[in-house]
């Protein structure tokens, strides 16, 4: 049904309309709550200024995702291959989630400086956990009879990983990655809030201090669009790598 497909657009439109009407009717000054038209105006009008900052934040997020993946994938494979590794590392993994990561942000800035590194690490620390856990769950969910089949075919560990466990776990991996990329933005922005010289988070702090709330909102809008774009990219990658599942959907 067409209505159901576009319902989210309708909801967004209604929300923006209410916001606009509220601002105009109540006469709230722009430096407290700017109307959406003002936000769009700034977001587009100041694009030349926002763009380099957005580029920095996006780079931090992408590098953070890359770093998280390069740790999470070998870690999940190792924990699956050797239960002893899982037993040894599981408490640390869980503890790493119990510590509020935001509390680490000032420390990371002290250790790694105001540049990219502290933000990349921030983003990576936040997202590597959902990716590791979902991938490990994916490996573990592999059906016993398939595992026995591979054992009887004399598959090596590498062959079983490559042909059985990895494709089996891919849907789980993408579920984790989707969660990961949506929260990666948070990590990068927090890192920028604490100490940075560029990036959308830095821009927000600066604008906030000067009561340029419209610019804060414009930065938030850009961040949201980046988040949606990342999510959509993962969706495209998912459809590409899980091509064999698509035939199932299409029947």
């Amino acid at each position, binding site marked *: 049904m067409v209505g159901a497909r576009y319902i989210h657009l309708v909801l967004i439109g209604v929300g923006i309309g209410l916001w606009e009407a509220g601002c105009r009717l109540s006469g709230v000054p722009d430096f407290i709550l700017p109307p959406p038209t003002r936000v769009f105006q700034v977001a587009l009008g100041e694009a030349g200024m926002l763009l380099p900052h957005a580029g920095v934040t996006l780079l931090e997020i992408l590098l953070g995702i890359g770093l998280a993946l390069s740790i999470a994938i070998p870690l999940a494979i190792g924990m699956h291959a050797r239960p002893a590794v899982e037993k040894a590392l599981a408490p640390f993994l869980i503890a790493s989630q119990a510590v509020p990561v935001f509390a680490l942000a000032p420390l990371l800035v002290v250790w790694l400086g105001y540049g990219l590194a502290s933000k990349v690490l921030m983003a990576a620390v936040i997202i590597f956990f959902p990716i590791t856990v979902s991938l490990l769950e994916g490996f573990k969910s592999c059906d016993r009879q398939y595992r026995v089949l591979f054992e*009887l075919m*004399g*598959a090596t560990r590498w062959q079983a990983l490559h042909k059985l466990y990895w494709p089996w776990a891919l849907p789980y991996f993408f579920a984790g990655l989707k969660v990961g990329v949506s929260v990666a933005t948070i990590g990068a922005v927090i890192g920028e809030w604490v100490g940075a010289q560029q990036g959308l988070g830095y821009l927000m702090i600066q604008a906030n201090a000067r009561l340029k709330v419209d610019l804060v909102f414009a930065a938030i809008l850009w961040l949201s669009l980046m988040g949606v774009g990342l999510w959509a990219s993962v969706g495209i990658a998912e459809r590409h790598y899980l091509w064999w599942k698509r035939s*199932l959907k299409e029947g």
Partner: protein
Amino acid sequence: MLVIQNVAKRFNGHPIVDGFELSIPLNGFTALIGPSGCGKSTLFDLLMGVVPMDRGEISWQGEPVADLRALAAYMQQRDLLLPWFTLEENACLPAELAGVPLAERRDRARELFATFGLKGFGHYLPDMVSGGMRQRCALARTLMFGRDLVLLDEPLSALDAITRRILQAYLLLLQTAFDRTILMVTHDVEEALLLADDLLVVTAAPMRICERIHLDQPKPRDTAAPSFLAIKTRVMARLEKEAIPW
């Protein structure tokens, strides 16, 4: 000749298999039939070395072996095809893992596909074909192991009656065209009587053979023949006696 002697296994103190014995001549087809839950699948796991035996001896062609892992291919009720590989890639998997070159294993798989009526379906994904075709692909994969022995664990019980009848003809090829030695577990009496040279009726917990029937009618057999029906009645009566002891 496959000889199995004295096989025993306990789970939590309960004997599942106790002193089980069996022998199958080279190129023979033996069927095990018994009530569900009698430990037939456990026996296969023991023979294949998936689960260790408490005790027992296995020998193949006079040579003692620890298990049949390197000698037998194993086919189950579920086809266990991988949805991300095509039918041909699925069938080729045992040969691929064993390091058989691509061209060689592909030729072998295509020959088998032609035999099993899958010609032209090699590039299809398992999700795109019927249950009977999937099981025929699994049968081709079983042969791609290149082993002398084939263990069949209720291979057709997930299929409908008509598909099953067609697949039974293909199973017979394992013996007649591919010279395999076959041990099959089933709970379909007619299937056992159609295919097997020797039929062993087993009891549950611990599993033991309560009746052996040698079937020397030539194959393919006619399910409507009076001699066929007479044996079927006899086996059914024996199974009922085992399942309902009063």
